[in-house]
């Protein structure tokens, strides 16, 4: 089991820079998710850690050992591919046994290890099936088995659930996390699905345009997004932004929002007048007739336990999550009240969060 360190990692393809100067450390036994939209450099970073791609600059340390320019075969890591990468001409047992055969392990030992692995994954009954006859989930299990069988230092997974359908994906999430809890190997998991990352990871690195924007635990990242990008990317529906212009002084406990004032956690930063954005999660909005921010109900989406109500305000459309028994009429005018302890404030031009009380450890990438 291993610790992975990435120092100043950069990767350029001709004109295009895929990864710019990433730094992070993944502790031994951590389930680490790299989250971001497609093209943000998360996969490239993972592939560099695996040795499938060579960095333009920087260093990769595996258990303190510099492996930056070592071949993938010499790194003792396992990689799980998005499209499973099963060898289509081999059956399940051969697929799982392949890495062991490559090491020159004896036939009997290979068989035992393969059986052990398939038992762990509950796919013993598939040993002699052709991979093409398997369901998506079983393929994924075989791919995992092939990764596990060698007992590598770390697992690297590139959107391993991306090719499965939505319902099944959620099921596999639980399975994967359970597996990790059992084996305890360092796992680096790349995904563009915030739900996957949130539900499985110990730590999440949110990436955008080749840069790590924030690293933290799922709840940290949700509660205290370091940037508007992170705030928008995580959460469904995403955080609402109300844009306004104003100045800030450290110690303020309210902001001047157009002609009213909105209470907020204590501000820890001074700012000259600049475009700002107030970030409100939908679940932190309540309807209150007296509230100063008002808008017209545009639509309501019933979700069972809750409903999402969209309200057109003078400053933009806002989605609020309300209990489903709250009665809402389309077209009525309502006032919006915000949970002041949960509001976020951003510099609208740079997109970065403005420090407020209990900022805690959220760091910038």
């Amino acid at each position: 089991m291993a610790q992975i360190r990435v120092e100043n990692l950069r990767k350029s393809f001709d004109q295009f820079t895929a990864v710019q100067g990433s730094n992070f450390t993944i502790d031994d036994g951590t389930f680490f998710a790299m989250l971001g939209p497609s093209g943000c450099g998360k996969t490239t970073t993972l592939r560099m850690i695996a040795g499938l791609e060579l960095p333009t600059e920087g260093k990769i340390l595996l258990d303190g050992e510099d492996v930056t320019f070592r071949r993938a075969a010499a790194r003792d890591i396992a990689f799980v591919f998005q499209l499973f990468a099963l060898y289509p001409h081999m059956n399940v047992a051969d697929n799982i046994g392949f890495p062991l055969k490559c090491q020159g392990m004896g036939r009997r030992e290979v068989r035992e290890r393969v059986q052990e692995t398939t038992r762990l994954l509950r796919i013993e009954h598939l040993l002699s099936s052709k991979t093409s006859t398997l369901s998506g989930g079983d393929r994924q299990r075989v791919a995992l088995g092939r990764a596990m069988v060698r007992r590598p230092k770390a697992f690297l997974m590139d959107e391993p659930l991306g090719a499965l359908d939505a319902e099944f994906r959620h099921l596999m999430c639980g399975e994967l996390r359970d597996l990790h809890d059992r084996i305890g190997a360092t796992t680096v998991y790349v995904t563009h699905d915030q739900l996957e990352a949130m539900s499985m990871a110990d730590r999440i690195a949110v990436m955008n345009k080749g840069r790590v924007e924030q690293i933290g635990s799922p709840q940290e990242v949700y509660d205290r997004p370091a940037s508007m990008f992170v705030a928008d990317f995580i959460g469904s529906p995403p955080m609402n932004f109300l844009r306004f212009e104003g100045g800030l002084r450290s110690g303020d406990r309210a902001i001047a929002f157009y002609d009213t004032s909105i209470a907020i956690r204590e501000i820890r930063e001074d700012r000259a007048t600049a475009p700002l954005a107030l970030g409100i999660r939908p679940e932190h909005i309540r309807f209150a007739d007296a509230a100063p921010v008002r808008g017209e109900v545009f639509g309501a989406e019933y979700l069972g336990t809750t409903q999402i109500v969209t309200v057109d305000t003078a400053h933009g459309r806002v989605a609020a999550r309300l209990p489903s028994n709250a009665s809402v009429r389309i077209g009525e005018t309502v006032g919006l009240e915000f949970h002041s302890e949960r509001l976020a404030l951003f510099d609208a031009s740079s997109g970065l969060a403005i420090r407020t009380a209990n900022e805690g450890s959220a760091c910038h990438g």
Partner: protein
Amino acid sequence: MADVILRNITKRFGTVEAVRELSLAINDGEFLVLLGPSGAGKTTTLRLITGLETPDAGSVMIDGRDVTHDPPGSRDIAFVFQQYSLYPHLTVYDNLAFPLRSPARRVPGPVIRKRVEQTAELLHIASKLNNRATRLSGGEMQRVAIGRALVRDPSIYLMDEPLSSLDAKLRSELRIELKRIQLELGATILYVTHDQVEAMTMASRIGVIKDGQLLQLGTPREIYESPSSSYVASRLGTPQINFLPARLLSDVAVPPETETVGIRTEHLKVGARNGGRMVGRVHRVEHLGEQNHVHLDYKGEMLVTLADPHQQPLEAGQEVELHLVHPLYFDRAGQRIPAVIH
């Protein structure tokens, strides 16, 4: 706009019965969603209404007229396909005009122009009219696809998972948009999807379909709150409803005949141990931001409930007390038993 009525429709492909004895009435101005997993017969139902398939039994009535054996072109229906509904060799304008230029319709040129422009306006794609259909973003393409249906004024719009190929963000945007347009035009829409969120958020009524049979028809709230069967209950709601065998609840009063108890997250309250008999162990806590999913182990069965991430942090391994609040009861066959207790 008009009513569409399906009477006892059956359709077989080889030995497979795709649709079995299905009857359905779609009222004028209604947004009816057929919800079901892939292979449930939703798409076949749509295609039977369109006339792209002919039923083996039963009849299709549109506006009181029996159209069971009419060709698609003469049924006055607009259809939005899941994918590929734009002709890549035509511009956006020509794509939108295509239905109007059909020889069966003979709409005069100026009228076509007007209608296309109106539709484009409605869908916010007026500036793209001269683009090639292939040069659009996914969301724009899907708008044009819907627009191709909207240029006409048919009895009914049939939509076959029109949003499923889009990513989550775009999907939620277009969902609202589509609902708005439907209300504005007062259109009758039959919409097919496997996505419960789409069904719940847009439908005036949902029909839950499985193995070619219509299981329940009702408003989203009706279906969510009073599902007719355990299957229907499991189709709606995230996280999915928990099912517990009734025998595990020996000390809780359940209606007779109850085989399974269906527990939605809101039916399950978790509290610190306080002498209650239902005690579960926290298996894992998922942090999803606005809520935590708490996975509980209760007598070997896994239950999921919600917890506010900012209160009483639960830890794996902790033992908690469970309280049921108005759960759903199902009999041996999976049919719901109306609750009369409490």
